[in-house]
């Protein structure tokens, strides 16, 4: 039997693919933004707060980084519901993704913070900046700038991993593909199309983060490199 490739289902289903891709983008952009905040906060706590708080943050990071996202999603969606906290599929998806990417961000930003020389902090103190100003302007901004490439690749990986949320019926790109392939019996073609869409999305995200980096880090714009 010679298989005939047939992509004609696209003529009717492309709006569904587009809708799925749009939801994937919405879910992941929100998760990345929230996850970045969670991660940065945790990184600051881990370095500057009381050792016990630091230990708690460390435990959070290790637990999340050493268990699969799929199981984390199940715990948030099915587990929380059984404890009485019923969340919608999309809310659970965002929550699980935020918890996940927050842990990775913590570890990456912490590395950035630790790479800032002590003398910078001392110089900031000498200039009479408050503790908060030192942490914000002298430590965090340059720290994030240094680890920005690692952060962006983690965020792109998160976007790809968001395909797993299809398993709790969040109607994002992969879930849409699953529905279409069971309607059309064109599973090979459907998943090839979706793979291409994800590929496009990951290029789009990388481009977006590159632009964002130029906008955020004035020094990089002028010198072309991180400090």
């Amino acid at each position, binding site marked *: 039997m010679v298989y005939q490739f047939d992509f004609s289902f696209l003529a009717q289903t492309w709006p569904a693919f587009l809708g799925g891709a749009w939801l994937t983008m919405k879910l992941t952009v929100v998760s990345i933004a929230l996850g970045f905040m969670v991660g940065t906060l945790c990184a600051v706590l881990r370095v500057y707060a009381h050792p016990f708080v630091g230990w708690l943050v460390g435990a959070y990071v*290790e637990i999340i980084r050493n268990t699969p996202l799929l199981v984390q999603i199940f715990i948030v969606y099915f*587990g929380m519901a059984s404890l009485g906290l019923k969340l919608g599929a999309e809310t659970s998806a965002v929550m699980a993704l935020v918890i996940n990417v927050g842990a990775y961000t913590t570890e990456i930003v912490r590395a950035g913070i630790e790479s800032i020389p002590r003398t910078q902090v001392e110089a900031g103190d000498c200039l009479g900046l408050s503790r908060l100003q030192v942490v914000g302007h002298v430590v965090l901004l340059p720290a994030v700038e240094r680890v920005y490439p690692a952060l962006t690749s983690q965020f792109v990986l998160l976007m790809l991993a968001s395909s797993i949320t299809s398993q709790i019926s969040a109607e994002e790109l992969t879930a849409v593909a699953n529905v279409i392939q069971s309607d059309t019996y064109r599973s090979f073609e459907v*998943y090839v199309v979706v793979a291409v869409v*994800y590929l496009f999305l*990951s290029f789009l995200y990388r481009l977006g983060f590159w632009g964002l980096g130029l906008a955020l880090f004035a020094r990089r714009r002028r010198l072309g490199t991180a400090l």
Partner: protein
Amino acid sequence: MVQFTSVHVFYLLDAATWTILLSLLAFAGGAVLGITLALARVSRLRVLQLLAAAYIQLVQGTPLLILLFLSYFGLSILGYRLHPVVAAGMSLTLYAGAFLGEIWRGCIQAVPRTQWETSDCLGLNRFQQYVYVILPQATRIAIPPTVGFMVQIVKSTSLASIIGFVELSRAGQIVNNSTFEPFFVFTCVAAIYFAMCYPLSLSSRYLERRLNVAR
């Protein structure tokens, strides 16, 4: 409703051995593919470089889940009906190969330039350079990140549950379907994954520290 008992715990632990087996399969396959890709990336042939780079971009730019669906559902429509473990092993191999290839390329390139020049001066050919000079040093550099990536592989095998292969995550779902205590069951599952991954993470960090001290 069935009570969660030690029988379920043993069932989960039994399933965990399948997770380990699948991880080993993926690592073995990924290592072969990875070293091939890494050598292609640093080869002097432009075509090989481009092909390997394109493959890595392609695999790293698509979710593992889609790769899994392609090799399980996609290929079965094309007439190749694969057993879930074969489909999962294959897609994990393709996935791990791309990442290991990129990691190991970095390690090969981290060997100082002077080592290449010195071995050139000693009259070693390209093959001898790799075998006697470059790869032994690159291997040392490569061990910590490789152990770190093994954590990634173990976690990724959880996706095989989605195509119906009964490893730890799928076993968790099965147990949950009969006991209906999702929070407890999936926390147990997570704990077992943690018990497998955390030692790997720790040893990766330890090896990295030791490597930096030796330098």
